[in-house]
């Protein structure tokens, strides 16, 4: 009675939405505000608005391949050998990113909540979950996201409700005091985050059966993620003010520490810690699953559980390279602005190649 993979469009959209927000919600204000100040939230919004055409390109790509397995789709687009190279590249990018995210997950907890616990232990604990999710497959991973989003919802709501009263709108002025060039710079830093969401959308799209409205739904998901981040940036600015926001690596933590919920809870960190953990799991898991499925496409001999275990070792090794949170964030920025930025060229090129090369083969998509 078991079908290979059953992911529906709604699940895919939720997964893309959450992966897009991912762990970015911690540093987002700290990245854009030092550059454009009060226009930070506009930069975030723009940074997620501009890449939307690429979502539709990804959707067009998805439609040209068979449904059911990521590796098969890529090979259907590009042929077996070029496809393998592409898969390897994707795996390389995501593995690097995922390893760093793993490190970040542990280090942030080490810094904000558990100063005596060694960060590698927490990264390792996180890794166990991610490996477990990958062993159970894409479907279980996506479904776990679905359930965890429901867990997140009350936390997010409580978080926003708690900080809303401390918001001061005048802190958001002057809106565009720093000029368009700095705004463009900030947008440039934001754009790769959107690409992470788009790539994951591309990946998950190859598992979705009914993908008629795929482009629209996924672009809504990506933009929704961006809008949520923009809202958070605006909140951070409004509550903390520019001067304070600039001084922190993870302003969201400070935001949570600042708000007071009155009698029962001193700080609303209690809502933030779970959110951070879930975001770390979801984002690292996304990276892990993409890498794992890519490798399966490259070499069919990589069977479970050996594939997941070997990848786990790889991720853990990558996560142990940086020593401090600052290094992690800097490395993440570098990976984003090089490898993920490159996909803004790669995806259109891919689409062009596929449309030209597969023109004479109209039955391609009927194979699924």
């Amino acid at each position, binding site marked *: 009675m078991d079908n290979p993979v059953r992911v529906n469009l709604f699940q895919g959209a939720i997964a893309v939405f959450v992966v897009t927000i991912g762990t970015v919600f911690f540093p987002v204000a700290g990245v854009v505000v030092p550059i454009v100040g009060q226009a930070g939230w506009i930069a975030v919004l723009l940074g997620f608005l501009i890449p939307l055409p690429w979502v539709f390109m990804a959707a067009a790509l998805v439609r040209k391949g068979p449904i059911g397995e990521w590796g098969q789709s890529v090979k259907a687009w590009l042929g077996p050998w070029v496809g393998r190279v592409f898969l390897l590249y994707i795996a390389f990018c995501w593995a690097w990113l995922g390893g760093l995210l793993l490190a970040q997950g542990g280090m942030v907890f080490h810094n904000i909540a558990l100063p005596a616990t060694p960060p590698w232990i927490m990264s390792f604990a996180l890794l166990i979950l991610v490996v477990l999710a990958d062993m159970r497959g894409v479907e279980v991973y996506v479904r*776990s996201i679905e359930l965890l989003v429901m867990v997140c919802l009350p936390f997010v709501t409580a978080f926003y409700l708690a900080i809303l009263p401390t918001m001061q709108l005048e802190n958001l002025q002057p809106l565009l005091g720093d000029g368009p060039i700095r705004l463009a710079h900030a947008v440039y830093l934001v754009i790769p985050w959107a690409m992470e969401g788009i790539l994951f959308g591309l990946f998950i799209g190859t598992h979705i059966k009914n993908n008629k409205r795929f482009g629209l739904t996924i672009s809504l998901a990506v933009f929704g993620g961006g809008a949520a981040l923009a809202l958070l940036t605006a909140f951070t600015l409004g509550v903390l003010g520019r001067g304070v926001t600039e001084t922190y690596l993870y302003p969201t933590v400070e935001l949570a520490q600042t708000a007071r919920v009155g009698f029962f809870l001193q700080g609303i960190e209690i809502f933030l*810690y779970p959110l951070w953990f*879930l975001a770390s799991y979801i984002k690292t898991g996304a990276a892990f699953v993409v890498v794992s499925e890519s490798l399966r496409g490259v070499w069919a001999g990589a069977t479970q559980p050996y594939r997941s275990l070997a990848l786990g070792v790889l991720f853990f090794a990558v996560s142990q390279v940086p020593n401090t949170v600052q290094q992690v964030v800097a490395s993440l920025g570098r990976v984003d602005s090089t490898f993920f930025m490159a996909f803004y060229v790669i995806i259109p090129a891919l689409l062009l190649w596929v449309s030209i090369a597969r023109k004479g083969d109209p039955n391609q998509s009927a194979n699924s």
Partner: protein
Amino acid sequence: MAPKGKRFLKKPTPLHQKTRAVPEGCLTGNLDHDSNALKQLIRDAGDLEYRLVYTQGHRHVALFYYADMVNLTLVSRGIIHPLQQCAQELDIAHIAQSLLNVPAYKQARELARLAEALAEGSVVLLFQGLAEALILGVSQIEHRVIERSESEDVLMGPHESFSEQLGRNLALMRSRLATPAFKNKFITLGKVSRSKVAVMFIDGIVSEDLVAEVEERLLRIDIDYISGAGHVSELISDEPTAVLPLLRITERPSRVAGALMEGRVVVLADGDPSAIIIPTFAAEYLQSSEDYLERPAIASFLRFIRFGGLIISVFLPGLWHALVSFHHGIIPPPLFNSIVAGREGVPLPTVVEMIVLLLTYDIIVEASTRMPMRIGQALGIVGGIILGQAAVQAGLVSPAMVIIVSLTGLSTFTQPSVSILGPLRLLKYPMLVASSIFGLFGLMWALVFMVLQVVSMRSFGYPFMYPLAPFRWRGELDIFIRIPLFWLSKRPDLLAGQNQQRMNITPPYPGKGEQDGQSRKS
């Protein structure tokens, strides 16, 4: 109970062929010889009755039966008396069809078959000069009458519960679902116990694949003794080792009828009042059958309480420990001070204190559930109140901890389903351990681990967490609030593929049109 011969290839061989070396054979027609052979076959059976009847046709007939398993009135009036009056030559067909006054009969000539029939509560007749015997179905076994359900008691709605007798249970179901579409297939399980198991479903709603799968899994069971539905459910479960019950067990006919009408399959076993509902989704454990008798707003509130109880019973000890021993900053100062004041001088570390208290609580619960009602109450009072009070006054535990533990314990019992209580009582311990290692991080770790477990679980191939994951908006809503019935006009889409509509709604909804009319008039 017959069809589909192919599957019956695996039919277990009868007990006596394996366990005892008995004279294999058929009847000979010599009554003395046959009687002795039968007695020899069933030796050491103190309750076996043997009676000879002498007919007016000067023939002997031997009656065998187990006392207390047959209706003695029927035996004397329907069998012995007509036989005594019989003046004709003995002819099996004639005797069975026109002489005897019994509801059911069979013919047989193998001794082993006769022994089995005796064990089932039939009367066996051996005739002088005939190499064939009659098996007469006059069994009457004393059973419990239909009673209130103890484990799933409700305040409103139907109270009756299944009893141990399969036939009566099926009759209960038939009376609720008076339609030829209500089907039940019989399967015999257990090489020794030979229990009958009924697979019930509603034709036209149920998915045929599901029925086939249930039958296949049942037939795959090769076991000597089946004690009842609980036994069966573990043997056919997708993950027998899972902590959560993947198949729901109920003893309420009303719930079974509801499940059948949603397109599920229900398995009932003889000798057990419990029915297995296949498949089961996790969210159903939160739903009580009373919910649909109560007004939506009230039922929703009660569901909210139950959901809160579920969360509290699993997470509260872990969360409390994470707050008190790891993230002190989150506790507001006044509360902080009172916790510190209460804990001052308590010798045990928080986590040990909590585990000890939780275990004590579970011991009290376990002790009082096995006790009769009155003693149980006394136990609860002594255990809960006096012990807790004394422990706090002796400075062994802090008062806050007693509150946390009792709240946790109480919350467990908000659940409407008994089978979920065990898992809930167990799950709080791993959560507590995880949080005692990593604080909130550990608690979240354990949560995600649990989520990964439950989303990968399947109940007969259906995702256990449906409608949460995979997500169905309407189903999801029905978990947290009890939505009005006219919104639930469709069956769960995963179950009833072809026949989804269960209610036709002609807008305006019942009553609405009249009200509008009245208001317009006034």
